[in-house]
């Protein structure tokens, strides 16, 4: 067999690549000329001999018969979303694309702009509730100066300007507070019910962008129980958007001291913040806005001011409901308290005295 293979490789080098290898396997095949020459097989049940050897010869040839195409990449959108701009540029260069010339921005951003309101609070200053002490002369002087300046601006850039507008000649701050409270309640009710029509009536676009996610990804329950103090106007401002265009927009900050219930729930109805049963006294500086350039402009809730001089909020204490087992464990386990040190010392002394006796 070895000699025959060697002879074949020398005489016919091309045949060795494409012809399957088959040799004599049994010594009795010498008497059978058909089996010796390979016309018949000794084991007819075996379909192909030397499969692992022959398959190795033919695998590449079979692969060459496959038409190669460029397959789309797995999870291309996912990978592109996670790329930074630099990585995206590199990826485009690998594909042979000019990232500055042939590629467009990934996200097309559109936003509707309205000139009926100002996207922000015009003057977020709120005078402190408690006046500073007279001992600190410099700070006291600054505080008094700011208060007087603030009151002047309330008239000059606020009330005086509002009364020049058609339909607002008889505008009075004192009668605005009751209206403000009503708008406040209606706004929260509309938010609770997800009534977009009512929300657009009582809430400005700036406030809508802040309040709508609370009810889009969860639920809100709000109830105003009573007003503890009469509401008081803190600031009145009037600005035009764009500047010097005559498109006047007024903003009024109202201090409200109310007792209310507020509960915020997550998407599955679980309580996140607040409570639906407990009442809470709240002091808020609520900003209302009106497009006074138009005769039929209406006051709407615009935002809330968090004063700088207020104490910082405390972090939320995490609480969770206990199951029955945990309650039992809590009652069952008794722990030694680190207190009562003096009593323990006295007990130790008594024990020593007893031992001595």
């Amino acid at each position, binding site marked *: 067999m070895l000699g025959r293979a060697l002879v074949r490789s020398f005489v016919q080098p091309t045949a060795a690549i494409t012809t399957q290898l088959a040799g004599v396997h049994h010594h009795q095949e010498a008497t059978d000329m058909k089996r010796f020459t390979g016309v018949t097989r000794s084991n007819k049940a075996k379909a192909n001999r030397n499969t692992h050897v022959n398959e190795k010869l033919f695998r590449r040839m079979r692969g060459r*018969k496959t038409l190669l195409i460029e397959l789309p990449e797995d999870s291309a*959108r996912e990978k592109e979303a996670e790329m930074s701009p630099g990585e995206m540029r590199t990826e485009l260069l690998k594909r042979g694309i000019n990232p500055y010339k042939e590629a467009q921005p990934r996200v097309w951003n559109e936003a509707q702009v309205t000139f009926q309101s100002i996207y922000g609070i015009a003057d977020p200053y709120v005078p402190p509730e408690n006046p500073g002490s007279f001992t600190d002369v410099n700070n006291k002087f600054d505080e008094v100066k700011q208060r007087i300046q603030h009151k002047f601006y309330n008239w000059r850039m606020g009330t005086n300007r509002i009364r020049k507008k058609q339909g607002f000649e008889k505008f009075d701050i004192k009668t605005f507070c009751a209206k403000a409270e009503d708008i406040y309640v209606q706004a929260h009710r509309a938010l609770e019910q997800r009534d977009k029509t009512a929300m657009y009536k009582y809430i400005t676009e700036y406030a809508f962008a802040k309040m709508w996610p609370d009810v889009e990804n969860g639920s809100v329950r709000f109830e105003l129980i009573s007003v503890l103090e009469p509401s008081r106007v803190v600031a009145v401002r009037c600005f035009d958007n764009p500047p010097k265009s005559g498109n006047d927009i007024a903003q009024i900050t109202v201090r409200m001291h109310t007792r209310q219930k507020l509960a915020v729930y997550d*998407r599955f109805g679980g309580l996140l913040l607040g409570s639906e049963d407990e009442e809470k006294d709240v002091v808020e500086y609520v900003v209302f806005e009106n497009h006074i350039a138009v005769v039929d402009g209406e006051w709407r809730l615009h935002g809330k001011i968090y004063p700088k001089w207020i104490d910082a909020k405390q972090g939320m204490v995490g609480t969770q409901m*206990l199951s029955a087992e945990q309650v039992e464990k809590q009652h069952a386990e008794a722990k030694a308290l680190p207190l009562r040190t003096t009593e323990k010392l006295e007990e130790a002394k008594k024990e020593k005295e007893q031992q001595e006796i």
Partner: protein
Amino acid sequence: MLRVLVRTGSEACRAVSTSTAVLSVHPVVKSEDLSAKEIWDRRSKLRVPKLQKDEQLSSKVYFAPEWDLEKKPNLDEGFVNPLKGYGMTPEKWEYYNKVVWPPNYIVPETGLPKPKEVFHCKESVHFSPKRMWAACQLVWKMNVDEAITQLDMQQLKACNLLMDTIKKAKSRAADEFHIEYPSQMYVADAFPVQSNIVKGARRHAHDNWNTIRYRYIHIFVRLEEGPAPQQKQRHPQKNGWDHMDEYYNYLRSRTVKYSI
């Protein structure tokens, strides 16, 4: 700091009253106090078949944003073709993540609070849907951590892809949906859907060409909070002890015919 909250009868009544069509049969009990077997016994009763005339549909108490019916999945012109984008798509699967349930919602049929669930999808993976289905069946109704471990043991491409998907869903549950204990979730649903076929070709003898199909799939995964059910099937499979008990009952139930 731990605070003990006690549910009162009025609260239970208010919670149940959110759904007026179906009255609650079970009293409202905290889900932690029930064992896994009791929870799944209650949920299994929902699968008892009913006649359509006896069926009472529950009212819509949840809030979900409007679905744009005119939006075409492939941005094609003309009328909306229902054959395109039929079945489950990533957009539809993601829409389930936007459903908002009412406060303190309790499912009236079972008396249990609504378990938190996370819907996640891995899009456009070049793999066979049939082989991926086998991997999904392996981890179906299995605890999340155990599923990840089981898939990690199998060194197959399907299991690696599904493991990455479940890991991503678990991290999404913790980061995006603020679920406190993601390890206590189980794989409620896992299935592949074929999204695309790219046709290739292979040359054979005598000018014969055959088609090669390169299949692309989406992998959909839903994780649900709570204990995993004990069995994948509708009813638990009988083991040898159950068969023995049945045979003993048969033996003891025999009577002699026409006896005194």
